[in-house]
Each structure stands twice: as C-alpha cells, then as structure tokens.
C-alpha cells in the first residue's frame, strides 16, 4: 500500500511510521503545520506546531529513509478546530478539540488530499486497534488502557477507518519508547504532549479571555438568586467545583458545583452535587463506525476523554441519539463526545447537546 504517515514530531507517530515501513508499505511522511505562527522553540512538552517539532519529524523521516513534506493546514485548522473551540465555549459548551481535529483535519482534509494524490491510507500514532472483518473494519480500544485514544477517534466512519492505519494499537507506550530508541529515533525520550496544542501555555481560560474578551456575569443558584460573580462563563465546565469564589454560602454549607451555563443570560448556575446527576442525554451529529444503530441498542457509553464507560441504552435516528443511562452519572458536559462501546469495540459517537436528570 502507499501510506501517508502523519508525523507530529513526537515518538508515537515516528514509531507508527517506522512500523508501516517494516510492514512493507511505501510510506511518505508529512508534518501538518497547524499554526500560522509556529513557535520557534517548544515551551515545555506541548506543541504539535513548533518549528522544533517539524524538525524532529523531518529527522525521524530521514532516519526511516522516507520522503517527507510539510503540509500547511493552518487555515483549515483555524477555521474548523480553533474557531469552533472558541464558538463552543461561547455557547456554554465544553468542546473536545482533538475529536474535532480528527474529524475535520486528520481524517478528512489530510485523508482526502492523500487519497487524491494516490495514497491508499493514512497512518497515525494513535493508540487504538483496527480489526478487519468481513463486515468491515472495526475500531477497538488500545491494548494500553492508559493510552487508549479510541474515544477521540469515535467520530470516524467506515470510509475513514478503511483508509486508516494505527500501528501502535497493540503496544504499550513504554514498549514504543524502547523501540524508538533501538531504531535510533532521537524523539525516543521526548515528553508526551498532554494539553491543547494551540494553547501553548496550557491556560485555556486566558486563551478564551483573549478570544472572547472579558464577559463578567452572575453566578446564580437553581432558584435564580445571585450567589456570586464570574469573569466569563467560558471559564466553567458543568461539574466544576473549583474556582467559583462564591460570596454567599450554601444553605446546607456543602460544596456547590456548576450545573448549567446559560450563554445568552451569561449566567453560571450552581447547586449541590446531587443536582449533577444525569440519567438521560440528548446527542446530535451521530457517527457510526459501521452500520447505523437504531433504537434499542444496549452497551457502554463513555462521556469524556479518560472517563469510565457506563451501561446505557439508546434510541436513535439519522440526526439524533438519546442515551438512557442505567445509573446516574455526574458532571456530563454538553459539547463533549458520547462514545458508544460494545466491549472494546467502538460502535459510534454523538456530540452531547443536553442532559436531564
């Protein structure tokens, strides 16, 4: 196969590309330039957009002896990921930009361009397993549970999965580092990236302040009584407890949590922990890894990255999914993905639009 390996400059994508080469594929490396103004130097261990990362990716490609190019996707990334991220927060939701990037950039803009150029598949360093069956390609959780990234890939559909390669899905991260070192890849010891790649200092609140401006408003209780003030609703996520700085103590003296964010009134509603319990979730934009699921599906649903999967049943249509959780779950934030699993297999995903007790 002709394989396009997306190389971030990190250890995972470098080893993934190396394994694709070993598997006998004709591999070409690309680094995706996602920022218009790449930082000259990496600050900490965050970037996937710095010049140093591009250099590291190029060095890895040189060691593997594969062609290497840089693709400028900064306009697409700004429009489809960064602007969307800001707009989602402005609308009171909590987006997952990695899901969005996979959906719109890596497995859409990049994949389409690759296929157009004659490549058969795109290879990435994601930790997830692909299993070919007569019915199609299944997406499964990675062998390394701590590194599993199937949640952020749950948005992929069959056409995308059929053209994807995740060579690290069966490995542990520690093995990947050892392998990188034995292959002479200088990125073997490079620290993992954890934060949002386009927020270099990791301070999401301040980034949103710059994008949205200061938008102070009221913090209210479930009855609508003002109990405090906030510097901007984008600083809060449903289920959050810290940083509320409430002037008026709760009647029962117990801690209060963010229950709801109302963007138009610009209020943050707080209340007791018990009020966080969610039993029913409305999801939009359903995506199915294989065949669309209709009403009556039962399985597990994961409601945030690294969240614990919980049993649920669904009703579904082309545009919507409704999830009924067997037991209540706390802190479910609109904007996050609800990813459905059958054991380790990803069935599909949906964006959380609303939650109900």
């Amino acid at each position, binding site marked *: 196969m002709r394989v396009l390996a997306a190389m971030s400059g990190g250890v995972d994508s470098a080893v993934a590309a190396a394994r694709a080469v070993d598997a006998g594929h004709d591999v070409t490396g690309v680094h995706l330039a996602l920022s218009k103004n790449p930082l000259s130097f990496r600050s900490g261990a965050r970037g996937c957009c710095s010049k140093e990362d*591009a250099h590291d990716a190029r060095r890895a490609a040189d060691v593997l002896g594969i062609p290497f190019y840089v693709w400028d996707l900064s306009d697409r990334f700004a429009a489809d990921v960064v602007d969307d991220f800001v707009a989602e927060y402005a609308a009171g939701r909590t987006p997952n930009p990695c899901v969005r990037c996979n959906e719109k950039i890596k497995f859409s803009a990049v994949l389409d361009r690759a296929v*157009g*150029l004659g490549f058969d598949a795109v290879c990435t360093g994601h930790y997830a397993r692909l299993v070919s069956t007569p019915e199609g390609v299944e997406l499964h959780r990675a062998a390394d549970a701590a590194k599993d990234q199937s949640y952020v890939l749950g948005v992929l559909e069959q056409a995308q999965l059929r053209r994807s390669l995740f060579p690290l899905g069966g490995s542990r991260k520690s093995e990947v580092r050892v392998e990188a070192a034995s292959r002479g890849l200088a990125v073997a010891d490079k620290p993992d990236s954890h934060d949002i790649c386009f927020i270099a200092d990791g301070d999401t609140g301040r980034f949103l302040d710059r994008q949205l401006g200061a938008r102070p408003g009221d913090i209210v209780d479930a009855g609508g009584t003002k109990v405090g003030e906030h510097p901007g609703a984008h600083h809060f996520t449903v289920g959050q407890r810290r940083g509320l700085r409430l002037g008026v103590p709760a009647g029962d003296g117990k801690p209060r949590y963010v229950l709801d964010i109302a963007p138009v009134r610009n209020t943050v509603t707080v209340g007791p922990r018990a009020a966080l319990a969610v039993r029913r979730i409305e999801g939009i934009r359903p995506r199915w890894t294989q065949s669309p699921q209709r009403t009556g599906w039962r399985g597990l649903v994961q409601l945030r990255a690294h969240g614990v999967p919980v049993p649920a049943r669904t009703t579904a249509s082309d545009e919507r999914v409704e999830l009924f959780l067997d037991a209540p779950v706390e802190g479910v934030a609109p904007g996050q993905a609800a990813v459905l699993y059958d054991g380790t297999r990803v069935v599909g995903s949906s964006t959380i639009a609303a939650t109900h007790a």
Partner: protein
Amino acid sequence: MMRTYLDHAATTPMLPEAIEAMSRELTRVGNASSTHASGRNARRVVEESREAIAARLGAQPSEVVFTAGGTEADNLAIKGAFWSRPDRRRIVLSAIEHHAVLESAGWLAERAEADLSLVPVDELGTVDCAALRDEVADDTALVSVMWGSNEVGSVQPVAEIAALAAEQGALSHSDAVQAVGHIPVDFTASGLDLLSCTGHKLGGPYGVGALLVRREVALTAVLHGGGQERDVRSGTVNVAAIAGFAAAVDVAVGGLEAEMARIRWLRSALLEAILAAVSDAVLHGPVDPDATLPGIVNIGFPGCAAEDLLLLLDAAGIDCATGAACSAGVAEPSHVLVAMGLDEEAARSSLRFSLGHTSTVADVAALGAVLPEAVSRARLARGYSATGSERRVAR
C-alpha cells in the same frame, strides 16, 4: 531509482576540475595568514585563485573579497554599504530580490532606521527602471538589484541601474549568484560597486563565495577579527574551497559561450516538452532567450498545488522546486511571482525547473514522460473528497 535532477538553481554538481583542485588542497596544511613556508604555500593558492576569479569576472584581484557564500556576500554588501554611508538612510531594492538581500535590508530597517524602497517589476519579472529612478535620490545609500532572478530567470538591466545609482552618489550592488558562470558578467564594465557570487551554483563547493568590491569603495566590516580579507571580512580563509571555487569559475566562465548555447537549446526543449504534456501550462518569466538566465524555467500548472505536484514528481524520480521560500517548511507563495502580478492561487501552482552542466535531453524526456499523470493527479487531489463520495454511495 535513477533521479532526474532539475534543480540546478538550488545547487549544481561539482565540476571534476573543482573536485580535483579542492581535494589537492585538503591534503595540505597551511594557514594563509601564517608567515612560514606552509602558510606561504596556502597564501599562494588563495591569491592565484583570487587572480583567476578576478580575470574571469572583469575585476581586479584586490577587488575580490572571499566569503562563506552568497548569503554572507549579500549581508556584507547591504550592511557594509549602509553603515559606510551614515549620512544616507535609504536602501533601494527590487521587489524580487533573494531573501539574503531582502532580510538584510529589512533588518536594517527594523534595527538601524534604514528606509526601504521596493521597486516593482513588470509581468516578466524585469525591474521598472523608471520607477527605480524615482526612488533613488541624494538620501540613497545603496541600490541593490539582482543580476538574474533565481526564481523566474529574468535578467535585470544592472548597468543602467548602476549608472542611475552613481548619478545620485549612491552605491550599487547586484546579487549575481545565479548569473556568474551562466551568462557573461563583467564587473568593471557593469559599473557596479558591489557584486555577490557563490561557488556551489556554478560547479564549485558549498560554503565559499565572494563579494566583488570596487577598489574605491570602503565598506564597513560585518565580521570582525583578524581582518584577513581586505580588513572587511575576518576569518581564516577556506583555502581548499577557494581553490575549488576558482577552478569552477575558470571552467564555467571559460566555456560559457558553448555551454550557454547548449543550455538554451535544452531550455526550449524543456518548455516544448512541458507544453506538449500539459497544454495549459504557463511560463512565468521572459520567453526571449536574451532576457533570461538560460537554465531557469518557471511554470504555472493551473488547478494544481505546487507542493502536491512536487510530491508526485519526487515520487516519480524528478527533483524540482516550488520556488517558494520555506519557513518551518511551510511553503509561502513566492514573493517574486506575486511581485510579477500573479494572484496567490497562481503563485501557489508554480514549479521551477532548472538546468545545469550535467543536464541532458534525457532529463527533459524523463520529465515529459511523468508530467501528464502527475498533473492530473494533483488536479484530482485539489477537489477530492474520499469520505464524502463514499458516504454518498453508502447511504
């Protein structure tokens, strides 16, 4: 895989004579500044090289200042000239200069209060002399216009520009990195004060070049130290590279007439092959062979992204260039093509093919053979939606 090398303007293979001359010096010891016999031997090689280069370029030996390449020569010319004229603040440049010139002048504008004037070019990439005349005045320290464009090949009226500068008492410089060894260059006859050239674009080694400095011109030094080169450029001279550079200049300029005719013929064959393969391909730059460097062809392929085409041609064994500057490897639309009036889309769809002393008609044929497939692929890639089309089928 046999590669077809069509990127001689980036760098061209070393000539056997240059390899021989350089190899000979690499086996010897001697700092050209030392007084002893070994030093004298090294100095003799350097001075003979200087004389050979001067003779081939119409300069006096004392006018040759060796540098570590074209970029250093340009930096020395721009900064050294600007700082030597503290009474004058303006630097006049063409809009299509190499980054070594543009960035040097830009840095002076940011850090040393230089005023910059960028003179436009016409649609063929030739400097507008009337516009240049308007910009040059008694506040002008330096006028810098390249001899021939590295991106589109257009040859500039440097003698006329040098005369315009002289009228106003300004210094004149030309970056002749792409011209020396490829078309006739006579420093004295040009009337220029400063001229940059480099080894690796004409069959010499990397890392060596020269700034020709007219004898009457007192530049301010940029690299300080032992003052080895006319007190203007310090650093132990690179004896072996200088010997290789001189040998290459000797061969390239000595055999210029015959090689120029050969490359011109190849260039027209290349153009023919490209147009035969892709009927709507567009030449950017002069058609007239007298108005262009013989080896450079810049072609627009409508509907293609140049970087996609480069990837496909690379995979098919062809080395060529997008002709675009890279920052973090991200291709920006060429400032030269934009200055020639192309829109960003057209500028992003252009490739540069460049011929040199090892080019043959087989290279032209190889490109012609793979170009149609690559161009149709690249066009497909622009509008392709793999998932979109498959999704429609699935539902």
